[in-house]
């Protein structure tokens, strides 16, 4: 079983700062991390490899620094990593991103056919969740999104639990297929020491656009992106309301009065 996991390097949105004057992202001092969903995807692929044998590869598109997320994946237990890095890829929206990643996947599969592609449910920076289904469409394999459990794996098909708005669907798909991973699928394990050693010195295979085959440059990067970011602005401020005044008792009395007056009390104790 050969699984390829797409891993993206993202700024840690927990510590992100926005310049209030320009409404742009202040990247200074913001650490870059592996997209958390992608880390769970690598972990899940490693679990499957332990049970069923095979190989886990990871693929990332980004600047040379994105090597860090490939090293992180090797720590978790991936066997090999590919980084596609070229100025021509820069400024890609999801359509152009799925195109570039698909070209790399096609190249990888020439030497080592792919049974499953894993993506994260979404990346925490762009946050669209559109890249996975885009790759699947381009590779002409079925996408199954929002996977919270892989319940069965054979050489011809997989059974999956797909999270819905109000429950789960149990799905069977032929292989190859592409799935996108939810965090609840597993817990990231502590990296075994040998993996950490391997990761330190690991150098991924790096491909520029010239290494990829049959590439239509017009579909790459900014040029190949139908969407453009127009303006950035601060989220609309909501209008504040009434401040109640006085001691806690007095404020609560006022509150009860307005709830009565506005006939909101009948919502209480309905359920």
């Amino acid at each position: 079983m050969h699984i390829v996991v797409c891993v993206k390097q993202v700024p840690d949105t927990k510590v992100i700062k926005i310049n209030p004057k320009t409404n742009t992202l202040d990247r200074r001092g913001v650490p870059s991390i592996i997209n958390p969903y992608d880390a769970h995807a690598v972990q899940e692929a490693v679990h499957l490899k332990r049970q069923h044998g095979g190989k886990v590869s990871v693929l990332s598109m980004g600047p040379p620094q994105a090597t860090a997320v490939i090293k992180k994946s090797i720590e978790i237990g991936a066997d090999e990593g590919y980084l596609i890095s070229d100025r021509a890829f820069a400024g890609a929206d999801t359509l152009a991103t799925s195109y570039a990643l698909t070209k790399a996947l096609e190249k990888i599969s020439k030497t080592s056919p792919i049974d499953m592609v894993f993506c994260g449910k979404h990346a925490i920076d762009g946050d669209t969740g559109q890249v996975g289904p885009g790759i699947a469409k381009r590779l002409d394999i079925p996408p199954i999104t929002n996977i919270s459990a892989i319940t069965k794996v054979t050489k011809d098909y997989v059974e999956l639990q797909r999270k819905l708005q109000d429950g789960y669907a149990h799905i069977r798909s032929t292989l190859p297929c592409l799935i996108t991973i939810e965090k609840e699928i597993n817990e990231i394990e502590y990296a075994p020491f040998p993996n950490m050693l391997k990761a330190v010195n690991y150098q991924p295979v790096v491909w520029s656009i010239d290494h990829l085959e049959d590439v239509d440059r017009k579909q790459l990067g900014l040029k190949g992106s139908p969407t453009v970011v127009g303006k950035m602005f601060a989220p609309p401020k909501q209008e504040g309301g009434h401040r109640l005044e006085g001691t806690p008792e007095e404020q609560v009395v006022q509150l009860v009065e307005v709830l009565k007056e506005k006939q909101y009390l009948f919502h209480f104790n309905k359920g």
Partner: protein
Amino acid sequence: MSEEHRGIWVFAEVIDGAIAGVSLELLGAGRELADKLDVPLAGVLLGENITHLSEQLIPYGADEVYIIDDPVLKDYRTEPFLAGMGKLARMYVPEIILYGATPNGKDIASAIATDLKTGLTADCTMLGVDIENRLLEASRPAFGGNIMATILCKKHRPQMATVRPKVMKALQPDPARKGMVLKEKLEMKEAEIRTKVLEIIKGPGKSVDLEGADVIVCGGKGMGDEQAFQLIHQLADTIGASVGGTRDAVEARWISHDHQVGQTGETVTPKIYFAIGVSGAIQHTVGMKNSELIIAINKDPDAPIFDVATYGIVGDARETVPVMIKAFEELLRENEVISHA
């Protein structure tokens, strides 16, 4: 891109045999765009035995309903839905397509965008239109909600967006509205489809009903400790409310993640929302600011939660909440006496 792209479509998602709330909301938003651009608004309905549901779409604002009613569309799967939507979009060339940002809506929209080689804006919370250039202005929170970005798709058609549930408003249904229904066929056999839905299990993932709650009491990190957080439960029990929590309260393990309200939790729109010891970070308020009445208790008079609150109480929640519980208990007892009298 050609001049012939015309009309605004809404992907009408079917859940449990009825049109999803978000699709009705999108008809409301779509109606406004369609009137501005002077084009018809259509609902697109795919499924098995769903033809009658067109009767739900027209009263909510659709001028047209496109239908493919076929057994292979029984439960949502990307392959047959993509084939159906792709066929309709190529035949009738709409200018704009809107989808709910639900698991299935996002899935189908992403696949179609790649199929039609067009742009797709994700998870929008605001929609506008540049009438002169016929451009959809789809705005979405970015970088963890710290900023809004307007995304445009200038040269490709259709322009597409997924839109968060519960941010647009559905119209009051007008049963007298008339519309046109168009049916198409899907030439796809079950045997060609590579995925099978073995079973659908309703609800076990969500033991907490935040989405349907009329009243929510949400506690934040300001409660101080797990014991004081019990006051949140007590208040909720007193008035029959559901309990919510901020991410920080969840991370402190005072409450489980399925109670979390906000960007990475639930989006809720109850009649009454109590935010207690909640600072009002944007990632929290995106999930609750459309509640009808918001009551905040915070000891910091400058806390941002007061910017979204209808009524604000400045004070220590550990003192105020017990007073509130007592007041509501008395009130409800009085009401009971009155209603039994």
